[in-house]
């Protein structure tokens, strides 16, 4: 044994020391792991503090340590800290290992003696492993200064403006004909009730005219290749059938188009548009698109009304336009693709789609909007009758074991907003059926109080059913909401004219596939997983790919904007560094051992594996590889190895854990 190993056991205040006898673990390691190369073993209150780090650095210099093992929290938190500390003392950072005796031990056990024994075993594993660690150097790659942002809702818009204002180029990709996202559909925004369009459209125009932003609406990302700093993105710019160089957005074409289509996207099915259209008057860009499926010319070759009436010279309508493939180079990517509304027809007992006067939240938003289908009038499905009673049902599809378990976070406040708008505009009686009212952010609780004072009724209970089958004369011709009022312990039947279902929000139906395209994954509920839920909420496990807004989880406008800005700050940080150091933990294939069985070929979530037909071997591109280890585990020939995770390292760590070859065995190192 030539290595000189230092062992450092952290108390983490009482986090570890409250359960594990850290002094004993340190003493034991110094004595019983001496044969494994341990020359010094210490415990300290907070190893991660400057004093703790200096302790390690001092030992490296004075005792000539060649390896360091820190038994503390999860490496996720402090691996960098301790590796940097070692580096500061002249030791290659990858010769320092962390073992977790907090998350994997003290936090999950109550039996102090057993937890102390377990800490010894975990530590022995780390000591056995570290002897096989090798010196590694990070890979350095340059960063392309341009950024791609996918999704031009408020989060994407905010991020694009921040980066563009800082002087760097942005490609903003949006699959709809206009930017704006869901926010453009809303009328008022809680809790201040300012008009969504009034605060959003200035930002939209800024995006549309910004010299540093290339706006690609009506476009899809087809393919993403590359890695942080060097992504090559293929974008399909769908044919608009409108020449944007000559079009002035005058609107004559959609005025003259004789084909009306129900607008299921922007108007949520509440209104119609033409076959050539912009989704809304303030659309950015101002150029319309032709909806091929509903255009008479594309269906039977006749009509051409838009072309005939187009006043520009040359004519801006071009029926021969083709989809265009663009390839752009970017250094970083922000995904801000937002959410979709929970489909309320999935809860049949709520009658949406069957009972005409049951509306979804998005339908109601459109109804309230001055430029919407009813010009802001709150009326029943007949578009004339003003309701006298309105019931707002909270948590539709959220906090529900049958649909989504999570809280959609926006529904309480949007429901309160609806209650206010209904009372203000119609004077109708309003009932809110809620499970809990959650108003945790700035001025939200005050808004709740305001709605209470305005005379809103609140029933604490989950709605069982919405029906039009009357039991009593006063229920005739009404919708009846059956709900248990848990505060008075009684079933109630509330006759009403209108019901608004405050539907929850869900990940986009294609979130998983899109995530795969970008090399990031979804959590159990389908939202993209952030690098750390508290400390790194807009980064992902894939370097150079960031997330912002509702893709990461349900959130309201202020939170989405904050995330858009946060993601752009992260990207700007990367651009400023000009180059990036990649973790050297990478898979590599030993060509002599690879027989080209091709089991690994489809497995790489980062598309880092290429197969060479000529030599019949697979190869890992080290810059694309993120070191996840999937291929290493899958390779049947053992031809793929992961730097930092060699067979020797893993097996010796297992032997250490089982206390094989350790003086003073705690347990029998034999299964059974």
């Amino acid at each position, binding site marked *: 044994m030539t290595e000189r190993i230092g062992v450092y056991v952290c108390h983490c205040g009482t986090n570890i020391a409250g359960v594990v006898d850290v002094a004993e673990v340190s003493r034991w390691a110094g004595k019983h792991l001496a044969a494994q190369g341990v020359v010094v073993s210490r415990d300290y209150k907070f190893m991660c503090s400057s004093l703790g780090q200096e302790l390690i650095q001092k030992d490296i210099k004075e005792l000539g340590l060649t390896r360091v093992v820190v038994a503390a929290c999860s490496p996720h938190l402090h691996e960098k800290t301790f590796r940097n500390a070692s580096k500061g003392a002249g030791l290659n950072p990858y010769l320092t290992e962390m073992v977790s005796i907090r998350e994997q031990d003290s936090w999950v056990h109550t039996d102090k003696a057993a937890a102390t024994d377990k800490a010894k075993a975990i530590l022995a594993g780390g000591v056995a492993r570290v002897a096989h660690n090798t010196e590694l150097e990070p890979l350095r790659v340059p960063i392309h200064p341009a950024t791609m942002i996918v999704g031009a809702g408020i989060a994407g818009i905010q991020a694009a403006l921040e980066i563009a204002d800082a002087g760097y180029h942005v490609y903003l990709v949006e699959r709809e004909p206009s930017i704006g996202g869901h926010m453009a559909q809303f009328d008022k925004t809680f809790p201040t009730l300012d008009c969504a369009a009034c605060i959003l459209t200035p930002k939209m125009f800024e995006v549309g005219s910004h010299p540093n932003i290339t706006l690609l609406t009506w476009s899809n990302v087809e393919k993403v290749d590359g890695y942080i700093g060097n992504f090559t993105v293929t974008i399909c710019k769908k044919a608009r059938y409108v020449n944007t160089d000559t079009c002035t957005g005058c609107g004559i074409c959609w005025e003259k188009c004789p084909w009306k289509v129900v607008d299921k996207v922007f108007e949520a099915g509440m209104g119609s548009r033409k076959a050539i259209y912009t989704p809304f008057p303030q659309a950015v860009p101002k150029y319309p698109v032709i909806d091929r499926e509903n255009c008479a010319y594309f269906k039977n070759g006749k009509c051409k009304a838009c072309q005939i009436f187009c006043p520009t010279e040359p004519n801006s309508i071009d029926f021969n336009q083709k989809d265009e493939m663009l390839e752009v180079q970017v250094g970083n990517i922000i995904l801000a693709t937002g959410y979709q509304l929970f489909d309320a027809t999935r809860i049949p007992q709520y009658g949406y789609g069957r009972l005409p006067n049951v509306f979804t939240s998005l339908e109601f938003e459109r109804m309230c909007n001055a430029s919407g289908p009813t010009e802001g009038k709150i009326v029943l499905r007949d578009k004339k009758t003003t309701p006298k009673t309105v019931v707002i049902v909270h948590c539709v599809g959220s906090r529900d074991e049958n649909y989504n378990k999570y809280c959609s976070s926006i529904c309480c406040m949007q429901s309160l907003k609806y209650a206010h708008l209904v009372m203000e505009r119609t004077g109708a009686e309003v009932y809110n059926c809620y499970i809990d009212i959650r108003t945790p952010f700035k001025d939200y609780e005050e808004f709740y109080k305001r709605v209470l004072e305005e005379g809103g009724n609140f029933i604490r209970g989950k709605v069982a059913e919405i029906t039009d089958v009357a039991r009593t004369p006063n229920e005739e011709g009404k919708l009846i909401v059956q709900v248990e009022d848990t505060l008075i312990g009684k079933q109630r039947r509330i006759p009403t004219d209108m019901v608004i279902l405050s539907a929850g929000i869900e990940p986009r139906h294609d979130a998983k596939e899109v995530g795969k395209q970008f090399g990031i994954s979804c959590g159990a509920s389908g939202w993209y997983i952030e690098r750390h839920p508290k400390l790194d909420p807009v980064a992902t496990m894939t370097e150079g790919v960031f997330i912002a807004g509702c893709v990461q989880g349900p959130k309201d406008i202020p939170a989405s904007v904050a995330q858009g800005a946060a993601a752009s700050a992260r990207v700007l940080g990367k651009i400023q560094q000009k180059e990036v150091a990649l973790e050297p933990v990478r898979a590599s294939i030993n060509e*002599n*051992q*690879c027989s*080209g069985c091709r*089991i690994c070929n*489809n497995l790489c979530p980062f598309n880092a594996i290429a197969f060479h037909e000529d030599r019949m071997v697979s190869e890992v591109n080290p810059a694309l590889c993120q070191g996840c280890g999937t291929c290493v585990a*899958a390779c049947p*020939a053992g031809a793929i190895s992961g730097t930092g995770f060699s067979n020797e390292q893993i*097996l010796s760590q297992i032997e250490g854990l089982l206390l094989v070859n350790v003086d003073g065995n705690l347990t029998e190192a034999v*299964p059974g």
Partner: protein
Amino acid sequence: MTAKPKFAMYWAASCGGCEIAVLNIHEKILDVDANFDVVFWPVAMDAKYKDVEAMEDGSILLTLFNGGIRNDENEHIAKLLRKKSKILVAFGSCANEGCIPGLANLISTKEIFDTYYETVSTDNPDHIRPQPEYKMPEGEIHIPTLLPVLKTLDQVVDVDYYMPGCPPESHQIAAVIDLVVQVLQGKAQLPPKGAVIGAGNSTVCDECKRTRNAKTIKSFERIWNIAPDPSLCLLEQGIPCNGPATRSGCNARCPTAGAQCIGCYGPAEGVVDYGARLISAFASVLDAKEPEEIDHILDGLVDPTGQFYRFNLAGSLLKAAVPAWKAESTHEKEKA
């Protein structure tokens, strides 16, 4: 004329196929005779253990040892031959990794006897069991006793070279004999100690001519249930072929003939646990997402141990199932 170097071959717990494979090298066997003095080879010539015991330590140049260490006789001869041999080769799958006899490590020796002497197909009305010792008028006689687990040769003694295969292919045996002869004539060097000889360094796929594509497995098929495409990778057709993890050296005989590789050449270079590697590899390419779907596909592997550990159980990381292990640790303690 100087005396010819001495050669020995022994069979422990094995089927005898390795011995046949050696004879199957045809006229090459004459080279063995021409270059070596065969001092001990129970299957081919009469010899007594005491003759071996009387030999000088290290006096046998080359011993090919086939078979696993199943009983105390195997263990005794393994240790004896180690002492007497300069070069000890673990010859064939049993000596290397336990092979079929090693599958008995899944159960205790009691269960082995129960199966052998008491199942319905056995005619044993007096419930006779073999006894390790028996007194007869002429004196007491002994038979070897089973050890709690079958061990590979290198779990018992130090091994110089490993020659895999069940049995090793004759052309490989011939090549190894050629090599040793050349070494004796000073024309070649021995490989470093611990090397695998008489086999390739990659996998069966390397020698298999079938076309391979990026893989997904939708279901596992048994070979007699489908008519496989003769030119396409068997694994891609759902036939659980162990070729990707198995050491090359056999010229991909089975896959070439349309049968899946069952892994007789043992783990490829760099594979630590053969079965675990294959399980991990197969699981990686299952084309299913839902747990029920995955279970359904896996049900297609009717005998997982036989599929993944047919040859390698005794040589795997786990080596044996719990009952056999427990008995082994008791045995070790008693010995100590």
